[in-house]
């Protein structure tokens, strides 16, 4: 039928290497490349949501992107993941220039993200939602899936196992058969993270991963994120308003305000930066201060 399926059908006939020896995931086993955001500007009707923003996410680091509401954090994510087009500027990830790519092309490079507002399929089970994360890693197209070619079957089994593994890891292992719509908010957040992990990303964009969680859960999530970084060696770009968490797990922090970058550097320094305190922290999240403790 259309190009899509033809290509898939072809690649079904000769998969990259034979199923056993070759990794199906991103071929490079030597850590993720660095992400270089330079001079990115995004404008909407009236306003400039991002104004020549630049920062760099070091390979394998947890980099926090913070700032007041409406500062442009999610917009930045949307640019990185190809949902918005930047008016100018460039985003380089390894060899690739992301600003010119469409979302699925960005995904193909191993950039995964979660959403600020949960974006799962409420009717599908958790397992199915996670399997979608494998989309970029699998090849079965209309033809091979329709004809149930052995290749498609094998693929499904192999990736199914991996999905279960990741689900366990993310702490949603035991709700795999549940339609997502029935899960409480906090659990859905985990599912989102798990789905992103299922893409075997090299760069993971997390938009407020612990929003709507209580202290204990926040901590679990924080540990989970660190575990991801350590065991999967993924670079993580993190948007979060929970200063306690940011301070605990971030290696570097970039602060946006009104679409401009007002600070950049290691957490401690940023946290003391008067400009940041004025624009964002207020008397919250002072050093030593766990999130919002009275």
């Amino acid at each position: 039928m259309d190009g899509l399926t033809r290509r898939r059908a072809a690649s079904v006939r000769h998969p990259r290497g034979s199923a056993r020896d070759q990794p199906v995931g991103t071929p490079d086993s030597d850590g993720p490349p660095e992400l270089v955001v330079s001079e990115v500007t995004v404008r909407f009707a009236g306003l400039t949501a991002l104004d020549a923003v630049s920062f760099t996410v070091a390979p394998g680091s947890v980099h926090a992107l913070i700032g007041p509401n409406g500062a442009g954090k999610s917009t930045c994510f949307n640019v990185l993941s190809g949902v918005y087009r930047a008016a100018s500027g460039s985003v380089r990830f390894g060899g690739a220039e992301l600003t010119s790519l469409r979302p699925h092309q960005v995904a193909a490079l191993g950039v995964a993200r979660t959403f600020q507002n949960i974006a799962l399929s409420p009717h599908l089970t958790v397992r199915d939602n996670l399997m979608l994360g494998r989309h970029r890693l699998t090849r079965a197209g209309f033809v091979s899936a329709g004809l149930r070619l052995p290749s498609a079957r094998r693929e499904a089994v192999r990736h199914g196992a991996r999905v279960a593994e990741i689900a366990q890891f993310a702490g949603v292992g035991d709700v795999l058969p549940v339609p997502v719509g029935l899960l409480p908010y906090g659990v859905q957040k985990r599912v989102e993270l798990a789905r992103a992990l299922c893409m075997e990303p090299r760069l993971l964009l997390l938009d407020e991963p612990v929003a709507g969680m209580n202290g204990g859960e926040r901590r679990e999530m924080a540990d989970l994120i660190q575990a991801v970084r350590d065991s999967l060696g993924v670079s993580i770009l993190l948007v979060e308003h929970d200063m306690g968490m940011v301070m605990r797990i971030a290696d570097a922090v970039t602060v946006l305000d009104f679409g401009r970058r007002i600070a950049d550097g290691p957490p401690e320094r940023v946290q003391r930066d008067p400009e940041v305190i004025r624009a964002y922290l207020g008397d919250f999240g002072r050093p030593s201060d766990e999130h919002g403790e009275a």
Partner: protein
Amino acid sequence: MSEPTPAPDMSASGTPVTDTDTPAAPAPGAPVPAASTPGAHIPAHASAAPAYGVRTRRVSRPVRAALWAVLLAVAVAVPFYLEGFWLQTGLFAMAAAIGAIGINLLTGATGQLSLGHAFFLAVGAYSYVYLSSDLGLPTPLAAVAAVAVAGVSGGLFSPIAGRLKGAYLGIATLALIFVGQHILFNAEPVTGGFNGRPVPPLELFGLVFADTPELVVLDVPFGSLERLWFLGIALLAGAALFARGVLRGRPGLAMNTIRDHEIAAGVMGVPVARYRAGVFVLSSMYGGLAGVLVALVFQQVVPDYFGMPLSLDYLAMIVIGGLGSVAGAIAGAAFVSLLPQLLTRYSDALPLVAEPGSGGVSPAEAARILYGAAVVAVVLFLPGGLAGLATRLGRVRLKELRWAKSAPAQASRR
């Protein structure tokens, strides 16, 4: 069409929380030491787990196999016993089912409304005629090519199909019907105009799907209908299995996600526009196949048939049958195509249905009314459509009431 629904059908939840009741609330006021309320420490995702123990066990294999065997046996026996009228009605139902499966992929699974399905049936039917009689392709080849042509014409529509959503796409596809019929009526050299054109019978491995040459099997005369019956069964089975594979497989997931959350789908690596177009092409190929079959049964293609009402019928079918499910599409198709025939056939025997011509409700009208009522009733009382109902009943019969609740939503979604 594709706005995410707040919460899925709530009948689709697991065994009651009572399974995981925590000990009674501790003495109020004074906070209680951790130890005394163990239940309290299980974090939601862990404690919730049993609460969602959605056990999706299916009917046991042997039972399933047996059911299929019986079904097959019946299907084979039918042409030996039923008269032509029934075979033909059955064949229309099969063709409808194929088309319905196709549109279900589009509307049910991907959330793209299409009112233009009849057009693709027309493309299939006419292409078959043109390719076989004018270009002289061998008929089986012509049939395959016709399906391909339908797919291509679906592809040509992809600038629209890829970009438009929901109601807008639905009505945009109306254009296919009207423009299509205009072409059918006016492009006489190809379409034969309002007369339509005779359909050359299919000829497969020397077997001609027509009344001549005579063929008698077990001293039952096998005319075109008897022969086509088996072709119909085969095509339908193939179409159904293929669609099932697609829905259960990788593409199915992508389609569902496009329906539920387009942007998310893109970010997860699904080329949304291309998929939309792809599904549209696929469903038009199903339409094309249905068209070919219809043509073979009709033996003459006429433009009037491929009008707006046909398209609407297809939508009704998938709703009655159950959105997104292959079995549903088939059930719905059977219902919609059999109902009027049954009523007209047995009008005299039926109460309340009056002799045609006499003042009362004529069979045709009764059929229309029941048909409309069915669409409404299903949506009101049978979420998940006939398919959902079937699963429910099946579960009940198998004493699996507990999972019955979990059946429809899941069954109807994937």
